[in-house]
């Protein structure tokens, strides 16, 4: 029945986000056409679940399929595809000048996730980054007596966890809100890559001895989870939950975080915030788009701030950590080495590097530009709801901590998530959990 | 006490009345045969007694109890099914002992009874066979054994010997009779075998189209059938029937006359159409007339087909002067007679002979209703011998 589904046969086929392809597909093609891409583009939506999409791409590439020609890939997996040799080396495909631009103008931390750690070659072109920020309900804050001037400071100046927790407790009390802080701490990849990673880094901790060892070499880097800073970061999280916690951290507010966080992922944690039932909420910018929308809380009642921290960068135990830290999300464009339309595909990739397209994507779908400088452009600031929060996001973007993606990361991430979850759920002490995690990670490292 | 009483029992299926207002009163310990044409409702009657079919109307009593609404298991009956219905997943031993095991008899008692039953049905040594490994007759014998081990108040047996050979059938007949005496149970028995019905039963119940025609001891049914149907049904080969008309001197048919004393008959008049019935064994060659107390006048016939049976020969006779026989060979119509003769007789096909009827064995039926008018009404001229009016069927036994 569905004979030739392929569309025009010489179009560049692009493995794309299904929702976006559906909603802005035509505008997007127009955007590229306006920016000099002559080839037709066919958006081929992948699975809405990113894990499934990754598996799908892996199978296609392993089977030597020539389509899609280019893929959108999560920065969390690109590394694995590089390791497996499944995607094309852009350092060999792009001009020197273009490579230089990537080197100079992009968020470095984000770009790094598209490079081969050993050679530094570029395998993916950053398309859009994603940085979580701390979001809060201004209306509740106002009830505790805070005003616009406070909010302005908060937007760019990170607080310490201690201050922040007291602030949260205070507002929670004043506004009589059910939840102080909502975040995600389920046993899932998001905890390992992001929420726990952020908290740990902001305490000066790291999984593998700091920023330099993020992408390997596996087996030759230290495992550093059984360290005080990491343990303390978990104790802090537990302190937020449990008012009767024996091992509570001094000076931190308690009872501001519901035990439900141990089963929450992004959406489930966002729901109470959207309902006005929470003071603070850690989430990706998409949540700002939703919660601060006209028909939700509205921009006036919704604020953002950089993620709090416990230890400044200078005092961090693990090199390259400390200070406010945002996990790193976002997507790259990669090239299928078997593509039969490589030239046209590169044309698309090059167009993506233009500011026009970056801003266009932001306007069309809220995808943040991969270059910090574009954050300050007027055009960006006028864009949608999120345009109002670029200050904070930019701070976040400059303080990111990528997940340590290697070929063993998927194994490690499940152990990490499990351990972090256990502690916050109060099932194991932080010391015990990190001790166990240390040995588990070491074992995995010794492949 | 296990008399079985059916009061006005009717069983209707969608468009068929299988049993029609049946009244039966079977005494405790009695052996009653149900006979009737195929599809007349015998099995259905049995099923209502067993409780497998709820009658549409009417009540059933076993002993003093109204069992109409009781489930089969509480009725104290054992049944041999017409369709045998062995349990395919059980061997012969398990099939036979089924009813006993249900009642938690001890192993030895079961063994003993199964052994005896399998002896009776001559299935010794086959106890570990599965039903599928047996011949038709062997299966039927298992079904019989399954019923007789039970020793219930009432036995219902639906053509239990249909698939057995003659010899075994005679053996089983005797065994069943002995069992009947021994256990003193009531037995209701369906058979198509005349010999079985005649020899085993205390009374025979003749059913036609779901309606009870007559229930009487075998010889009463044989000699004094209440109607044409019973007369034709009991006896094999069946009674000769010749249509005629009542005259002052007797009965006149198309081809012959029989002298009778119509005066002695009640309720019928000159000129009434009647059917004259005479059994094959009561038709004799004219030579044998003097051996008979009441021979009729000789009748001219032509022999047609001869059927030698070994112990006798059936001779089909065409009545001379009758219209051409339009039914086919072997089937009998109103203008042919069947005669049974000795195997040594020298009768040949297409002989022209004369025969006489034993007037004392002649039956008269109302041609319209089929009801019997008289049995053995002899010629007025002769001494009034053993004539009798129609026996009231209620008065049987």
């Amino acid at each position, binding site marked *: 029945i569905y004979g030739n589904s392929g569309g025009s046969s010489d179009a560049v086929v692009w493995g794309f986000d299904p929702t976006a392809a559906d909603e802005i597909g035509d505008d997007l093609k127009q955007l590229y056409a306006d920016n000099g891409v002559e080839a037709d583009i066919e958006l081929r939506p992948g699975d809405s679940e990113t894990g499934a999409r990754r598996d799908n791409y892996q199978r296609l590439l392993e089977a030597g399929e020539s389509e899609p020609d280019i893929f959108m890939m999560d920065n969390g997996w690109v590394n694995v595809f590089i390791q497996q040799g499944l995607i094309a080396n852009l350092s060999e495909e792009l001009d020197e000048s273009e490579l230089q631009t990537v080197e100079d103008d992009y968020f470095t931390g984000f770009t790094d996730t598209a490079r081969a750690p050993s050679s530094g070659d570029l395998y993916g072109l950053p398309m859009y980054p994603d940085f979580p920020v701390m979001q809060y309900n201004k209306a509740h804050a106002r009830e505790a007596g805070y005003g616009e001037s406070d909010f302005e400071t908060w937007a760019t100046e990170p607080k310490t966890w201690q201050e922040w927790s007291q602030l949260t407790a205070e507002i929670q009390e004043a506004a009589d809100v059910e939840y102080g802080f909502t975040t995600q701490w389920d*046993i899932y990849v998001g905890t390992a890559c992001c929420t726990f990673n952020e908290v740990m880094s902001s305490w000066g901790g790291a999984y593998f001895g700091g920023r330099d060892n993020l992408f390997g070499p596996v087996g030759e880097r230290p495992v550093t989870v059984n360290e005080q800073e990491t343990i303390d970061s978990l104790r802090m999280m537990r302190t937020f939950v449990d008012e009767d916690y024996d091992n509570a951290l001094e000076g931190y507010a308690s009872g501001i975080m519901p035990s439900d966080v141990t*089963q929450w992922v992004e959406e489930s944690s966002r729901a109470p915030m959207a309902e006005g039932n929470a003071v603070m909420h850690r989430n990706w910018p998409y949540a700002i788009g939703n919660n601060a929308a006209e028909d939700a809380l509205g921009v006036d009642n919704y604020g953002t701030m950089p993620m709090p921290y416990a230890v400044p960068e200078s005092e961090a135990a693990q090199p390259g950590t400390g200070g406010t830290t945002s996990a790193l999300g976002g997507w790259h464009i990669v090239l299928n080495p078997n593509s039969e339309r490589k030239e046209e595909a590169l044309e698309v990739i090059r167009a993506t590097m233009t500011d026009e397209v970056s801003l266009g994507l932001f306007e069309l779908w809220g995808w943040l530009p991969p270059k910090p400088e574009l954050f300050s452009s007027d055009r960006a600031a006028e864009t949608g709801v999120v345009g109002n929060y670029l200050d904070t996001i930019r701070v976040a973007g400059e303080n990111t901590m990528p997940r340590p993606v290697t070929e063993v990361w998927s194994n490690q991430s499940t152990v990490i998530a499990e351990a972090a979850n256990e502690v916050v759920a109060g099932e194991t002490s932080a010391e015990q959990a990190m001790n*166990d995690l240390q040995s588990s990670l070491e074992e995995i490292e010794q*492949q | 006490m296990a008399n079985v009483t059916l009061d006005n029992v009717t069983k209707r299926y969608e468009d068929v009345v299988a049993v029609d207002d049946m009244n039966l009163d079977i005494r405790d310990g009695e052996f009653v045969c149900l006979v009737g044409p195929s599809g007349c409702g015998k099995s259905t009657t049995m099923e209502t007694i067993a409780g497998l079919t709820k009658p549409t109307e009417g009540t059933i009593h076993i002993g003093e109890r109204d069992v109409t609404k009781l489930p089969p*298991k509480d009725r104290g009956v054992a049944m041999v099914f017409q369709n045998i*219905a062995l349990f395919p997943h059980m061997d012969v031993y398990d099939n036979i002992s089924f009813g006993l095991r249900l009642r938690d008899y001890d192993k030895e008692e079961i063994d003993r009874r199964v052994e005896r039953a399998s002896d009776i049905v001559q299935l010794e040594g086959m106890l570990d066979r599965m039903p599928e490994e047996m011949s038709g007759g062997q299966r039927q014998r298992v079904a019989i054994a399954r019923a007789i081990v039970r020793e219930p108040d009432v036995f219902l047996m639906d053509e239990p010997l249909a698939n057995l050979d003659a010899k075994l059938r005679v053996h089983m007949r005797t065994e069943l009779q002995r069992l009947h005496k021994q256990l003193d149970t009531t037995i209701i028995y369906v058979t198509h075998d005349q010999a079985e019905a005649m020899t085993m039963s205390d009374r025979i119940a003749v059913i036609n189209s779901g309606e009870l025609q007559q229930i009487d001891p075998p010889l009463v049914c044989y000699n004094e059938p209440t109607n044409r149907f019973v007369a034709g049904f009991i006896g094999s080969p069946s009674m000769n029937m010749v249509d005629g008309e009542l005259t002052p001197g007797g009965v006149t048919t198309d081809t012959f006359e029989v002298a009778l004393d119509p005066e002695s008959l009640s309720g019928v008049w000159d000129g009434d159409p009647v059917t004259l019935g005479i059994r094959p064994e009561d038709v004799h060659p004219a030579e044998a007339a003097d051996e008979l107390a009441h021979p009729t006048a000789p009748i001219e016939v032509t022999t047609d087909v001869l059927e030698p049976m070994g112990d006798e020969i059936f001779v089909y006779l065409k009545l001379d002067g009758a219209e051409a026989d339009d039914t086919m060979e072997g089937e009998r119509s109103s203008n042919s007679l069947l005669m049974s003769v000795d195997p040594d007789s020298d009768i040949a096909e297409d002989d022209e002979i004369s025969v006489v009827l034993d007037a004392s064995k002649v039956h008269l039926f109302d041609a319209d209703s089929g009801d019997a008018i008289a049995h053995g009404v002899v010629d007025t001229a002769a001494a009034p011998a053993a004539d009798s009016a129609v026996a009231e069927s209620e008065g049987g036994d």
Partner: protein
Amino acid sequence: MAAETQPDATTRESRKSGALVTLTRRIENLGETGFAYLLLTPVFVLLGTVALYPLLRTFELSLYQNLVGLGEAEFVGIENYVSLFTGDANRWLPGSTTFLPGVSVNGTFPFVHLNGLLRSALAVTLIFTLVSVFFETLIGFGQALVLDQDFRGRGWVRAAIIIPWAIPIVIQGMIFFLMFHPQTGFLTEILAQWGIVAQTNTLNDTASSLLIITVGDIWKTSAFMALLILAGLQSIDRGLYDVAEVAGATRWQRFKLITFPLILPTLGIAILFRTIQAMRIYGLIDSVSSCTVVPSLSCMVVETFNTQRGLSAALAFVTAAIIGVVVMVVIYQQYKSGDI
């Protein structure tokens, strides 16, 4: 008249198609064995290409390591298999999952202790299988007996009982996930009061999740049992019940002596396949909880699929072998009753 017979047997058919007739005749004339194998050809072809060939390839994979990731694929023989039993492979399994439960012996009752029972993929799979198949059989049997009765509205009850089976696993997962989700989980509190499930972090608690998943599976797949058993019940010759009833069998005896033995072959098939399916549980775990929390054997296969493909292949074969051992019991029963 015999001439009238002629056209039927031979000429008529041969007029239709001579070749076809010869073929069918040739087929009919094959011996029992030849005929059997001929009829099985489609099965052999289909299973050979779509099942056996991939399995062989997968078996080939199971003898290699490093199929995914840096470096050359390395032939390691049965090392992948061995590593499962020595515990070396545990580090590739999600979370703190182990393949075998740890066994330790000490002086306190019951002397032999299975450590981390619920962390063991093997143990979790077996526990799940045992419990779910047991209850599914029981409930399915009950449902089938109900559906076997004649009563008003039985068609509706039938449809209702089959609905769970018609629901996709993701939705089944969603239903139970949301029943115990922190926000929507109206059941958590009630059940937690009785200590049946954990009060918090319910779906990340192995025992609670395993219970929920087991119940969810029973809810859905009892219908599978019910359908099969019902079909078995319906194929029983009702005449046998008449015989048994007249012989004086009570309801229970009729069930025990007629119904049960006669549906035993069907029941055996139902249990056999349910056991196999249960031992391959994956989808429901994935959608209600996660493989990290409730590790099943199939979970392990899927979770290692993209990282340790050789190990994943070995796990698939080991899973199959374990299933083979477990269902031997059922098969033996079938064999004894002559159904295989």
